[in-house]
């Protein structure tokens, strides 16, 4: 294909990507498909026991092409690559200090693969398509922090490219590295069938291969080890973990499998899903958390569970979603206005009739009380509670 022809294809793919990512209500799966164009994500999620669905074919197909065509995806499809190529032409003094450093992308891939074996794909979130996808969730953002969070990935990539040329694409990008590794594997297989060449060349190649295999083994082992640590940390934190959107898998796996792609935040019509600013620790940074300050999880909606590309949020039917326990609500009688102004807002708001006034003989008074067996933590009560920042009724995490 000519350079010009390739350019047309790239621009076309970029436009197609934009179209997929724009907020068309009839195109719910658009962003989910888009993310699965990344072989890194597709293979990572499959390895980690996340999602396999029709969309996975896309990532697997590109992976198959990568076996025979070196970085074909980067050169023809990748919309992030196109954006970065565009800005790398700007007239900043580009330093190429990194030229002699090794390509760390491969190790990211190995670490992730190692982690994925234990259900915790460490760096799956470093995928460029996830970054771009997240940038498009900016129109679902509520507040400055969410805007910054959704744009952060792309901004970092742009800055990196503007100051250091194609450092990202050539050395770091795990999607690129995945293709490199696939291509290496492909040529290795092809070479098996080819007749042997000169002795000296063979020894050199063998030496390299041994070194490469050792490094690969070490990286995978390191991935296994660190994911084990990460999961232990997640488990230890799970008591004070923030509320997750419905369908979320166990907290210790969630922070690893979540791509920070922003799909759930953007899908939520109530805008109650926000990027985490540190509630769930460093490992959970920017992962989705649910807050019921202004609105609640509607009982006629399961959008967030349907758009997650990695399976961090399991796909749930509406009925399943309404049974999924986000947390449990409880009333703090010290803050409740029932005693002060006859407020019964939470009682009226609960879609499951889980809140009733109950009489406490010992205290000789009555108070709104939540029946935990009926509560799924949808947050309707918390959203409607008129106590401002205090919130007399709050949904909190429950132990499984």
């Amino acid at each position, binding site marked *: 294909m000519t350079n010009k022809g390739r350019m047309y294809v790239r621009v076309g793919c970029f436009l197609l990507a934009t179209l997929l990512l724009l907020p068309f209500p009839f195109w719910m799966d658009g962003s989910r498909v888009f993310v699965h164009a990344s072989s890194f994500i597709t293979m990572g999620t499959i390895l980690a026991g996340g999602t396999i669905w029709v969309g996975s074919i896309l990532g697997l197909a590109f992976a198959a092409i990568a076996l025979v065509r070196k970085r074909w995806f980067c050169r023809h499809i990748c919309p992030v690559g196109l954006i970065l190529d565009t800005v790398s032409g700007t007239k900043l003094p580009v330093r190429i200090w990194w030229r002699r450093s090794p390509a760390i992308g491969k190790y990211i891939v190995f670490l992730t693969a190692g982690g994925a074996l234990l259900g915790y794909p460490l760096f799956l979130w470093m995928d460029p398509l996830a970054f771009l996808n997240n940038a498009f969730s900016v129109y679902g953002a509520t507040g400055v922090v969410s805007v910054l969070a959704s744009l952060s990935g792309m901004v970092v990539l742009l800055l990196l490219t503007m100051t250091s040329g194609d450092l990202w694409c050539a050395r770091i990008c795990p999607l690129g590295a995945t293709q490199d590794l696939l291509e290496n594997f492909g040529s290795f297989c092809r070479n098996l069938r080819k007749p042997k060449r000169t002795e000296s060349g063979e020894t050199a190649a063998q030496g390299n291969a041994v070194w490469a295999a050792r490094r690969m083994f070490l990286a995978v082992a390191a991935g296994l080890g660190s994911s084990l640590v990460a999961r232990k940390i997640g488990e230890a934190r799970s008591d004070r973990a923030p509320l997750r959107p419905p369908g979320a898998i166990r907290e210790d796996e969630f922070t690893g499998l979540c791509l920070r792609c922003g799909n759930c935040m953007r899908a939520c019509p109530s805008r109650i899903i926000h990027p985490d600013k540190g509630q769930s620790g460093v490992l959970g940074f920017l992962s989705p958390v649910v807050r019921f300050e202004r609105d609640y999880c509607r009982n006629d909606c399961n959008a967030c569970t349907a758009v997650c590309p990695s399976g961090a949020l399991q796909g749930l039917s509406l009925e399943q979603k309404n049974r999924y326990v986000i947390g449990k609500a409880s009333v703090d009688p010290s803050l409740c206005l029932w005693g002060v102004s006859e407020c019964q*807002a939470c009682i009226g708001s609960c879609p499951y009739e889980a809140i009733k006034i109950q009489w406490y003989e010992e205290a000789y008074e009555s108070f709104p009380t939540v029946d935990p067996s009926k509560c799924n933590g949808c947050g309707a009560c918390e959203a409607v509670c008129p106590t401002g920042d*205090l919130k007399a009724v709050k949904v909190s995490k429950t132990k499984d």
Partner: protein
Amino acid sequence: MALSEEAKNGMTRREFFKNSAIKGTTAVALGAGGMAIPVSAQPGKSKQISAKTITEAARQTRVCRTADVVVVGGGPGGIGAALAAARSGANTVLIERYEHLGGMGTGGLVTIIPSMTDIHGKQQIAGITQEWIKRLDARGAADYPKKEHWGSRDKKLVEYYKNRSPFYATGNSVGYSAHIDAEISKCLFQDMMKEAGVKTYLHSWGTEPIMEGNKAKGVIFESKSGRQAVLAKVVIDSTGDGDLLPYAGARFETHIDKTLRSANLSFSYWIDNVNLKRYEEYKKANAGALAEKMREVRKLGGTAGFLTSNLRNQENVVWCFPRYANKSQYDVEELTRVEFLGRKEMLITHDFYKKHVPGFEKSFIVLSNSQLGTRGGRRVVGDYVVTEKDMKTKTLFKDTIAIFPNADGKNPLMYMPYRCLIPRNVNNMLVACRAFSSDAVINDTFNLIHHCVCLGQAAGTAAAQSIRSGVDLRKIDIGALQASLKKQGVILPG
């Protein structure tokens, strides 16, 4: 309770009256350390004095006035009834036991008229309530969401109004609820009575209906001037707790489930000179710490939480409404207990706030209620008992005299029949207050200030119509009643 049980067992009125009088004095006698004391202020010999009961001597009581309609109780129900009756041409007398008119709406410091709009923002309660707010408005003595915002579900608006008062936005939409000024309301009511030509007696406790068989003929009231009688063609009980019912031989119910709002008394007070701006800033920045403080004050026996006044030039005033469970809201022992407890806890609360909550450093208690916030007492058994089922089936009565909106989306409107104001087996008497004929749940939902004004307005209009046309209260032309209510600005179906 005991009284109602006996009433149900079908005693004659005379026996009933005798018994209840005796029971009434028992409490007083025991309260005074077991000594029997004569209750009558009139000269005359008491007979059969014993340690437990006394029998009062028969006596003659001065008739101080003869009228068409006598209304006992000058609270929201009584105001509606007296104004409507007088404006419809009846010679009307109003008897009020405190030194002011307005009842819970003024002396009880329940200075909130909630939800006059339905969930869609359409006004359903108007009439005298609307007149009241309109005239307060002229002095800047009322605060409520702007009319164009009623029914709005805009999140920012809802949040704004909810922060101002939980009554302004219930659930997820803005509604028409007003904070009102108690003192200006007192002044306003006396003007309104004067304009309508209602003869008002303050400081007068209407105690007994004058009965002839099952016909009410007037009312006896006690005051500094002694015991006097007002004769009238129609007696309207607007005492709130249905104080006349036991003596009229009317059946009534008293059971209120403990989990209901109306099972609680309230001891309301105001704190002035609060720096609310400072408080709000603190609350925003230190929600967790403030919550901890609120838990602490509750442990000490105080109450957390308050409403802001919102009224003009009352930017530093907050309203507190602590709530007290009780055995009965018309038992003098309980009323005294709660009154004392309320004052004690008011000090605990304020002391704590002053010491520990930013914004309250220079605050002071400016006012406490002159009458306890009563929410539920006797409920008359009327010609029709309105039940929860009527609400759920959205029964539209032919004799609907008021529409009550409800924040509950499933049962947004409640229609009130005229028959729920007429005590069963009693003639010439109407009940126009929270003692209207209803089950505990309906009473709990619809016995607030504006509901009582509505019931009063209908009762007063009906009484005047009955007298004018010479027809019994039960047989009046309902169409004509509804037409004249509509003329008075009452919103009715159709």
